[in-house]
């Protein structure tokens, strides 16, 4: 099948939950927990969908998003941003940087799976 997700998240339990949701749907989930080296991880793994937390050790998710959008290779990469901060201005900021989808924690498992699927489908067409 070859559908892959890169999950950049530092909270182990959340990593485990998301991995379980996606893997049983047939996704290959790769995990990275450090913000500072996140863009390298993206370049290396070349995922179909990127799930990116905002509050990361080393570097903020917003900065990573900005970098990725500037880079030609990842300018159109489907990116789902996760945040626990729950402020509307975070969403606005993410959208201004060109995020594909924005989701606030906590999320439902179904919602997560649907969003990732939709993002992948969108990219295909």
């Amino acid at each position, binding site marked *: 099948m070859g559908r892959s997700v890169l999950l950049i998240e530092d909270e182990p339990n959340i990593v485990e939950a998301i991995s379980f949701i996606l893997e049983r749907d047939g996704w290959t989930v790769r995990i990275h927990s450090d913000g500072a080296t996140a863009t390298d991880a993206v370049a290396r793994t070349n995922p179909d969908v990127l799930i990116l937390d905002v509050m990361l050790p080393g570097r903020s998710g917003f900065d990573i998003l900005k970098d990725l959008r500037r880079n030609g290779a990842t300018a159109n990469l489907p990116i789902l941003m996760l945040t626990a901060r729950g*402020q509307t201005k975070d969403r606005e900021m993410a959208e201004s940087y060109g995020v594909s989808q924005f989701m606030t924690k906590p999320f439902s498992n179904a919602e997560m799976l649907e969003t990732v699927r939709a993002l992948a489908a969108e990219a295909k067409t």
Partner: protein
Amino acid sequence: MLGFNAIVFIALAYVVMLFAVAFYADRKARRTGGAWLRGPWIYTLSLSVYCTAWTFYGAVGNAARSGLEYLTIYLGPTLVFLGWWWILRKLVRIGRAERITSIADLVSSRYGKSSAVAVLVTILAVVGSTPYISLQLQSVTLSFVVFSGSTDQGQISELLVNDRANVNRIAFWVSVGLAIFTILFGTRNLDTNERHYGVVTAIAVEAVVKLVALIAVGAFVVWGVSGGIPQTLDIIANSPVGEWRPEPSRWIGLTFLSAVAIICLPRMFQVMVVEQSDESHLATASWAFPLYLMAISLFVLPIAAIGLAILPDGANPDLFVLTLPLEMERDWLATLAFLGGFSSATSMVIVAAIALSTMVSNHIVIPLWLASRAGGATVSGDVRSVVLMSRRVSIAAIVALGYIYYRLTDGSTALSAIGLVSFAGVAQVMPALMAALFWRGATRRGAIAGLVTGFAVWAYTLLLPAVGAFSAEMLTFGPAGLEILRPQALFGFTGMDSLVHAIFWSIGLNTLAFLVVSLVTFPSPLERLQGASFVNVFERSGGARGWSGGVAATEDLLVMTQRLLGAKEAQNMFHKAAVEQGKTSGLPDPTPDFVNVLERELAGSVGAATAHAMIGQINGQASVSVQDLLAVADESAQMLEYSSQLEEKSRELEQTARQLRDANEKLTALSVQKDAFLSQISHELRTPMTSIRSFSEFLQEGDMPEKERARYSQIIHNESIRLTRLLDDLLDLTVLENGQVELHIGPATLRELIDRAVAATGAEHLAIDRDPAGEEVVFNTDSDRMTQVFINLISNAAKYCDAEKPRLKIAVQASDHMIEIDFIDNGSGVPKDKESIIFEKFARASDQSAAGSAGLGLAISREILARLGGEIRYIGGRDGAAFRVSIYLEQDSLAAE
């Protein structure tokens, strides 16, 4: 003979005449004419204010009692004027340069404008002059009494003894008359330079009257009574006067005293320095004044000898000048003698009272008045009337003091003895004054020490005995039987004349105190500056002698004037001056008149001192004195006052704007902080909730293998606990921050607290090094809260210490005032850039949010310690993470041990 009423009428008429003279002279002086009024002759004659009733009546009395000794009173001044007139010249030059108004002003000015010195000299001058003024009262009273009685000398004496009430009444009215007379003369107007042309001219007239009167009486006595010079010499040779035996100590002492007095007497300073208008007059006076003294003393001895020979025994020799003509029934001559004596007394009282009232007013009354108004004296008219009023009251008070002294001494002492008490008193200024002129090392403290010492010794050895303040027992055996302190034989110096004794000790100790204190103290900068300018006064070019020597270029003056007055007004003014000088075009010549007019004009806009200084600089006479500079500073300060008020206003506005800006920033910062805080709380709450929601959804799906089910349940459980703990911490912190926490203070042993904390943490993998001896310390605290702090620190080490074998060292240092407990682990420590934030809420030094706490622990610990009287801080520079908990002990909390 003339009756009492007639002589009163004559006296009043004479006073009216003097007023006319003064009035005329004032008017003349105010218009530009009347140059002779400011000439050397009026100056020299005004110096004769030295010759008072003491000279006029008392010298004859003195000669009758002590022979030629009366000459010493003339010898001193003569020596000063002939031999040491350069001292006077220096005094005069300084007086002009510094715009000195009195001797107190001069001395205080030299010693750093010290008001303490000014007040001291003023008090000294007033107290010292009081006997002298009383002397004038006594002599005028006596002369009136003579006319109120009979020509029979015996009866006069009886009258003096028997009708004291009548005599005192005369003395009282004489005092009142003199006070009114002086007030009318001396305070008619207020001149900034303290010059009284009218008064000085009237004094000069009086000088002529007293000289003519004494010579007339003398000539009458020599040629009219005894019949010629040879006969007179015979009478002198046969009279007790001729049996005079010289007494060297008294002779030298008196000569010295009168030499000092001519410089230090307040009234002499007034006429010699303050009223003086041209320094060159001193050259004339230096020979003319001794000549005047010689002339006035010429007939003293004949009058004394013939008076003793002719008049009956018991006649008061102090009145021979008056009683001899009366005895010979020469009414006109007696009247002239009366006027001579009256002139001597009034001129002294007028000048002395003016000089003293200037000092009292300038150095005591006005400073007090200004202080009482707390700097509100801005209306010049206001000050003026206060100054005049304070001078008038001072004059009345000074004459009243003289009257009181007269009553205290019963008016019975010989005139010359009273005068000598005064001389010795004012002579105490001499060391400070001479040092002011010649010694740059003299200091203010030295001057004060000398003045106080001299004044005290003088009062003790001379003044108080003279007014009868000491009992005979006290004089003979000393105070409380201490013979060494006998007022008239200090330190066992017996056999010395009491006056010489007093001069010796008072001046001697005065000078000694002055020298010693000056040498051990340091002058202030202003003293140093003034000292240099006083001592080197002749090195300054020009001096403040008007602008006669100026070489100002008119162009420069015009440029400056334009700057100050505006171009048009300045040009008009210069054009007008040129026309007045008879020029049809161009600029006026910089004549002294023109420059003076210009200075006045400029003074109107920039102030007198500034104008003087500015013109002085253009004139090439850069003699800008310290006083000038200070005055300039004062004026500038007034102008600045106004502009600083404006500045103040704009500063206030600026400040308001800044406060608004600050408030806005604070609000923004506050909302940013609040934002950040809410974001943090949101994050900390949502993260565990995310896991809980996800995993509970998995469990709801059912058909989950048992192994997964158990694992997911455990995660949900752990995250729930994490959530609860977070809420607990948040609540705890809120309570602590709001100060709502209830503390349970009681004695606790540090070891037990740490034991509890270690047990609660339960971190088996962390090795802990303790300090059992150091931990045995008891102090008052809230045990649970303190344990909470320790738990937090130990669990932090357990969580974050990244060493292979984590190890925590707990070290204790206790003193009387505080206990310090260090928690040092062997990990990599807190990164340098995080050290400052680790105590903030939600701050985690490491990025391991997995550590399972929200990052509130240190913030809570900090709050707890603040409540318990201590602090926690991170100590950098160690190998691992190092926290220090300091607990400040109240003084008695350790004593409870």
